[in-house]
């Protein structure tokens, strides 16, 4: 049976030979956060690229691109307004606000 001192010396020598760090007390060095590979690039490529018409229209206003979904949305808002389902009127002052009266 080898003495603990001899075993420690053996470990130290082994670390020197194989170029690993000698850490007999197993103190945390945080090295695993530096050693781990970066996950961001792989994470970023999960969703396939989609064609965003409104973004293209914003970048190239001279092309006059019409986004049918957006046109449909404007039409829906107009239709709702006609049926009295538009956005509520803004309160003139704080006293008129619906939220103010509800709190009391």
């Amino acid at each position: 049976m080898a003495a603990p001192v001899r075993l420690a010396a053996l470990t130290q020598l082994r670390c020197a030979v194989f170029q690993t760090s000698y850490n007999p007390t197993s103190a945390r060095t945080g090295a695993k956060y530096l050693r781990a590979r970066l996950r961001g690039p792989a994470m970023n490529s999960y969703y396939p690229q989609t064609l965003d018409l409104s973004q293209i229209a914003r970048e190239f206003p001279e092309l006059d691109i019409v986004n049918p979904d957006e046109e449909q949305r404007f039409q829906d808002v107009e239709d709702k307004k006609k049926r009295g389902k538009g956005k509520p009127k803004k309160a003139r002052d704080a006293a008129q606000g619906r939220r103010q009266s509800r709190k009391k």
Partner: protein
Amino acid sequence: MPNIRVLRDIKARELVRANEVARRAYLYVARNQSLPPQVRHQAQLQLNTFSRYTRPTTVKNRCIETGRGRGIIGEFGLCRFQFRQKALRGELNGVQKASW
């Protein structure tokens, strides 16, 4: 057009990628027991100032067709129903309905 949850997830993925190196550096300092406690504490406080979306654990794999968050089959990135439909249509290579 992806729904809001997918857009939020895309934003989180972008932020994780942008802040990954800085977060790793702070993590290294905060978790390193050979450094003085004050320095480690400062690093931990810095880590807490990052937005919630810079943490890799906030990223969730959602269905790339419908944006559904549950029942995702990881290999295809599809929720179970989209997976079934696509497989039956023969759009997934190497997938066929079991029969014996």
